[in-house]
């Protein structure tokens, strides 16, 4: 099959590759770039395990072709930690026991990062709504909500330092 050249910034690093036009972004991330933190849990855009930020907005990378993201900036779970500092969302998930098997966790955290960029002080209801497209089979969501509340608190306290942390360089 014919291949198309694309150029993508992923976690601040520029990648150039030739891909089949039908290759999904999630497979590009996982199989070509070997960033396996982004997971696949379904084939109907339902589970959100594959969520990444594309130009700062959360998308299900199983429902984007790699060629569509050409020229874009992608942030995956591997790009959350900066200079050995966990992102407050990562910290929150650890502190509040927001994960069990960890399979939904990267996608769940990326959705949370996007939410907190838009809404630094979300209510429980707003958090639940924001993560409604991310399925977790293990935790029952209560501690995920707490984890995101923890991150929101932490980010508000350190607002200037944390600003602009998500969405690539």
């Amino acid at each position, binding site marked *: 099959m014919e291949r198309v050249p694309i150029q993508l910034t992923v976690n601040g690093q520029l990648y150039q590759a030739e891909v*089949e036009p*039908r*290759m999904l972004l999630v*497979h590009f991330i*996982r*199989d070509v770039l*070997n*960033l*396996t*933190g*982004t*997971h*696949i*849990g*379904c*084939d*109907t855009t*339902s*589970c959100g*395990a594959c969520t990444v930020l594309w130009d700062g907005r959360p998308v299900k990378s199983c429902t984007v072709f790699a060629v569509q993201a050409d020229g874009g900036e992608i942030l*995956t*779970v*591997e790009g*959350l*930690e900066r200079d050995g500092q*966990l992102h407050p969302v*990562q910290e929150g*998930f*650890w*502190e509040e*026991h927001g*994960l*069990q*098997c*960890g*399979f*939904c*966790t*990267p996608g769940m*955290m990326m959705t949370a990062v996007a939410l907190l960029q838009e809404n630094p002080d979300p209510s*429980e209801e707003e*958090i*639940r*709504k924001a*993560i*409604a*497209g*991310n*399925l*977790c*089979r*293990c*935790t*029952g*969501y*209560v*501690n*995920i*909500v707490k984890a995101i509340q923890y991150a929101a608190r932490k980010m508000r306290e350190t607002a200037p330092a944390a600003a602009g942390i998500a969405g690539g360089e």
Partner: protein
Amino acid sequence: MTTTPIRGLGHPVKRKEDPRFIRGKGTYVDDIKLPGMLFLDIVRSPYAHARIKRIDPSKALAMPGVVDVITGAELEKAGLAWMPTLMSDRQMVLPTDRVVYYAQEVAAVVATDRYTAADAVLAVEVEYEPLTPVLDPFKALEPGAPLVRPDREQKTNHIWHWEAGDKEKTDRIFQEAEVVVSQDLYIPRIHVCSIETCGCVVNYDRATDKLTIWMTSQAPHAHRTVFSLVSGIPEHKIRIISPDIGGGFGGKVPVYPGYVIATYAALKLGKPIKWIEDRSENLQADSFARDYHIHAELAATRDGRIRAMRVHTVADHGAFDAAANPSKFPAGLFSVCTGSYDMEAAHVAVDGVYTNKPPGGVAYRCSFRVTEAVHTIERMVDILADELGMDPAEIRFKNFIRPEQFPYKSPTGWEYDSGNYPATLQKALDAIGYQELRREQAERRARGELMGIGISTFTEIVGAGPSHTFDILGIKMFDSAEIRVHPTGSAIVRIGVQTQGQGHETTFAQIVAEELGLPVENIIVEHGDTDTAPYGLGTYASRSTPTAGAATAVAARKIREKARLIAAHLLEVSPDDLEWRDYAFRVKGAPDRFKTMQEIAFAAYTNFPQGLEGGLEAVCYYDPPNLTFPFGAYVCVVDIDRGTGQVKIREFLAVDDCGTIINPMIVEGQIHGGLTMGMAPALFEEIVYDENGTMLTGTFMDYLLPTAMETPHWKTDKTVTPSPHHPLGAKGVGESPTIGAPPAIVNAVVDALSHLGVRHIDIPITPAKLYQILVEKGVAE
């Protein structure tokens, strides 16, 4: 004393496994990539029952990148077209002449990448001659029903009949009973749907003649033994690695055909093979749970004392009996269905039946059919209360096994280890304000509003199990731990069970920390690699803490006994003059003369007494003397929308008693998750087939997992009644909420409608189903 805190039992230690997961650095099976790896994908049947007339792989084989197409005919030559199931049945790996369920594996293609493999699946031509499928287990038992399994000697769709309890005594009590209530309950087919699907990576290294399989397995050791028995490859030449597992819940206990085909392909082609099923395949073809058609009866006195229980169940097992149960228990532990109540007699009978549906009968986060048992008794108690005009709490208090009756011998033969049911229910009722809720309900009813309060006081049975009764394929269901303390006082623990999110790397380290007085952060836990971990039967049925948790404690105590000898040598006293207190061996009467485990560990390698072996390690294969019986009292409050039939869980309180708690944070997390997986089949999930046996719920678009929007903010509390026979008093908790929640929710919904004459609703109580009832009762808006 050491300055680093020990943080043993009872501490909410943050999980040791999390740092890799929150960085996206876990290693799940699909993350494994080997040089030259090929991808395997599977051609599946569009029919529930059909003869295969022809399979033509030529078009697929002609595609660039396609390496091979494997069919049943080829596997048959290798003696691998069939494999044994855990329940003494056999199952097709790939069919040679017929398919017996929708989405069954028909052939496999191997290609250089996943996209080409998926293309090739579509290019394999298969010609079928459709046959009439048998989908209803009752019809399957009728004379003249088409045979699902003509390969068997017995020409019937009936698989087995199984009974427990005293039939004669039970029948006698029913004959003379003042009150009898009966009910049909259907507990539908559901699917565990861990967010990670199943799959494997298989590598055969010709140079070392070793087969390595990375596999989504809840039981890697047992799977290695099965693989060795099926293939004839010596067991030491097989290494199964269960890396990070993205949820199991029972669905990763069976051996699926995909694993076997991928292994065959790796051996045949000499290349590493990856097979990862997609969600539709996972939902459509992997082992299901439940599918029990239950007829239950209770006999009671007029004042509400339960005297006996009688149950008959028709169990739909699909086309192969591939249930994952202990060998002697074809219906699992269903006979624990007398629940938390003391009665004179019970009789339970179950008939297993073949139908043209996917095989299975695995747990869905439950200990071998206990969910079905608990749903039955908890519904029946409410039905009896309704019959007698009693309050559901009152009838429970009246019939509870009393604390002083433990250990309690149940009428179907189980010995409950410990419990305090009245205290737990009372705690739940007080916390939620039960009387106040009943007053509110009366007021709302008067205004035409539908509010319900549901109670479930369940007893769980976990920790299989004692070797005299429990085995899988003859392998006794003990479990194991191996501990090695290093010279500087850190340690490695290897266990035979396998985490899928339960947090073993943390809780097992806490057990060792507590027993040896070493800081939890200096202890690492490994599992899931059959080359390094001791043999164990794996993690399911909440057995990790009762079996391997006990093994870990006992192994640690063996180390402590050796440490006592070394401490005596260092302190120049007799071992009998020492006592283990505050995490150190202290001289009796002179507690400031002591040796810590860290000091002792160093001496174990540098300065140990004459006649003693050096080193500090121990192994334990723990054979539990009995099962453990966690329990709880759940109260659920619902409001029903008369315009939509929607059930809103306003409040849900779970008071659990799982004995001694190792890590309260993890226990609470397990309960939240279990409650959500209990709510799911109560309100949303059901696998549905059309009249041709085609699955209608084969994706997440139609099989509805609860999202954060439907899931309430669970409230939890606890009582602690230790298990008298477990070394730590712990009982296991991961599944209690999954079995306790459904009846609490259903009882609440039925309670909201009881004044309209509604006595039972089968799960799932979907808005459509409930709205229909509201229409019939004339209360729909």
